[in-house]
């Protein structure tokens, strides 16, 4: 990989942030980089798309999703599915070996089970157990709360937040859930139908360090150059005409 900062010949410009420079990414760039990094860290393509969704949702809501995702991927890198996924029973979704669950897998699976008896239906309480970087769970719960008109409460130790129609919870979520892991319980009540919120307000910036770290994971999905790949990439005729 050519990391020369003057190299203009690569398909993205994110490696060109330096040091403490603010590093604003668009939501599209966030989703794309985070999906590739998640894939590079071992997620299936479909789950990596979920990682891209969650990170971009957080950026659109002024939370540094890419840094949160990297913090999780760094710890999950190389772990097998069984160590990262929930084991679903009617009251508990704890991982079989009580490992910290991947918040992307958990969030996507909660949405998959949204309309099933084992899932987050009104008046249910589910022990989630330990969840890695739990802020990454929030985008899934927020989308689900809106879609199924639910109030979803996350409880841990002696504290909780309720994801509902009143969006003041987001600031509290950012403050309390941006941590390595929490032992969580999820409880669900029927709520009000929520209005779609406007995401065009201030977007989060991330850091040059996070972008570099995610790029390192993302580069695992790429193939080193060969003469064959270079020669077949472009036109076989001159462009200078």
């Amino acid at each position: 990989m050519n990391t020369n900062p003057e190299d203009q010949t690569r398909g993205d410009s994110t490696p060109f942030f330096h040091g403490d420079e603010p590093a604003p990414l668009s939501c599209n760039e966030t989703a794309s980089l985070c999906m590739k990094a998640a894939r590079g860290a071992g997620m299936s393509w479909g789950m990596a798309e979920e990682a891209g969704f969650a990170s971009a949702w957080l950026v659109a809501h002024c939370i540094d999703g890419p840094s949160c995702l990297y913090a999780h991927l760094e710890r999950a890198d190389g772990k097998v599915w069984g160590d990262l996924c929930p084991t679903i029973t009617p009251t508990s979704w704890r991982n079989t070996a009580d490992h910290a669950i991947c918040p992307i897998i958990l969030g996507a699976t909660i949405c998959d089970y949204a309309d099933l008896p084992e899932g987050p239906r009104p008046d249910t309480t589910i022990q989630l157990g330990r969840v890695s970087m739990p802020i990454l769970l929030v985008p899934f719960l927020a989308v689900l709360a809106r879609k199924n008109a639910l109030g979803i409460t996350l409880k841990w130790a002696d504290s909780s937040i309720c994801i509902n129609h009143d969006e003041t919870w987001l600031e509290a979520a950012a403050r309390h859930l941006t941590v390595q892991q929490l032992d969580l319980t999820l409880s669900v009540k029927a709520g009000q139908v929520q209005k779609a919120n406007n995401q065009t307000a201030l977007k989060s910036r991330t850091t040059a360090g996070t972008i570099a770290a995610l790029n390192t994971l993302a580069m695992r999905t790429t193939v080193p150059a060969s003469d064959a790949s270079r020669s077949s990439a472009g036109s076989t005729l001159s462009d200078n005409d």
Partner: protein
Amino acid sequence: MPVSKLNKTAEVRRFMRPASEVMRLERMGSSHPTRLSFLRILLRRLKSSDWQIDRPVWNVDAKGVGHGVYRVRSDERIYSLVAFAHDLPDEMRSDRVIATAWDATFTLFDGEPTPDDIARLAKNVPFQEAGRISPKELTLARANRSVRLFKHVVDALSEGRQPDASEMNAVGYLMRTTAVYGSGKFGASDREDIAQRPELSAPFQVEMLTVWLIRAFTVDIVEHMAAAKGGAGAVKLDRDTRRSLGVGNSTGLGMAPFIVRHPVLLNNWMLAREEALARVRAQTVAEPDAVLALNDVHASAMQNAVAWRSEHPVQVKKLQDLRRDLDLIADQLETFDWAVTRPWNELWSWGESTLTFEGQEALLALMLEPHGPLIDDLADHMGADEAACFRIDGAMSVADLRSVLEQSYGWALEIDFTTPENTARFWYVSEEKLEPRLGERATEEGASLEQPMCIARLVAELYATVQDYDHTKPVAALLLAHPEHRYAVRRVQITKNHSYAEVHDNLIAADMLPIDLLRCKLAYFGASQFDPRSDRWVRINLFAGAPFPGDINAESTL
């Protein structure tokens, strides 16, 4: 409202072509632009909304180096193309995404740029991928001169004469763009943040506006350089000559994954066009004005086919087919009985049984052209809210998933993926340049890093798993046990409600032609001539024959 709701009557529905016919690669690779192409939608919008267009800044020296600003104003909004003109040595000119310098670079600014904005953009836009733009910018683009024609036109105008018509026709543009980036790339505004604006709700409108204004810039810069060279004796381009010029574009493999990665969007493009064709076929009578207009657009298509040049053997054959088919259509129109019931459907049925794919798709474009009032509303349904289709329906039973697979993916399940010719290629991203490439599985390294482009094989693998899985279980349980199928399951559920979402072909087959994917997308942009430069690289011309900013309000039809 989705297009499917508009398609109310069984009357129209029975004239819709099925996906099994429309979504084959060979037919997609014969696509022609229509009045629903994105540049046509832009031009109609610009005319109907009475936008004012001017050039408030022109700061370019005698060598053609400097910058200019093109401003497009309505009562509510301003968009400004900021153009930077450079002096590029010939040896640095390449159309590849890996080029490092260009003859001109551009950004479409959301509003009117201040001098501070221009200074910031001057430090970034000329460097393209090595710079950053901001949410105030909507696109980032660059263009190279057609060296031969550019020099010829500057020389001719500077000497007080018009350029040679045969030289103009042989190239067709003064500059060609080698990338036009939008949708949040390199820090630009996200599509989601601007898609609600009526003038930008159709696909690729900021990109089309950028290219249309670049076209004006290409003429301004040759006339400027001719004046600098020839002084008082220099002349400007004749209006008709100027109008024949388009903007060239070089496109490589990067465009192919887009088609595959945006299934809902692809569906909406195809559905709008197919609904338009069905509405025309369903007309019980032909209006005399429409028949007259059909003859006019056929004559234009004949001229276009004569002017269209390519050396690529695949395209040479397709051009022969097209020219022969347009002759056949001419013969048919001379004797056609427009008094029959559903004459447009009669004409279409004749074409289906007589013409090659090239001719059939050209006939489609011709038949849509005289029917603006009947079909132009479909342009409002070609965008897509992809986020709304992202969530998987985990409550669907595995039995239902299997049934969708069998009903909608028969074309994929029939492919034998154990044979070398059916798995000959693999799509990957190059580490060196981060661009999509296509490798040969038998001879190149890297197949373990294959991108999920071959939907047919992913779906066949899902089907194999589903056959052995408890059919009473929900999809949510299947995905917890088999997370590797999440990508394919999402596709299958999308296809259940979007029948034109998938390309019905094997995208890793030995004989697959990437230029077929490129041509389909470029036809939707509105390209009228396609010149493949290899099996994965194509040049086109955009906006040739279209009005310039000063002319648009006087146009009778667009």
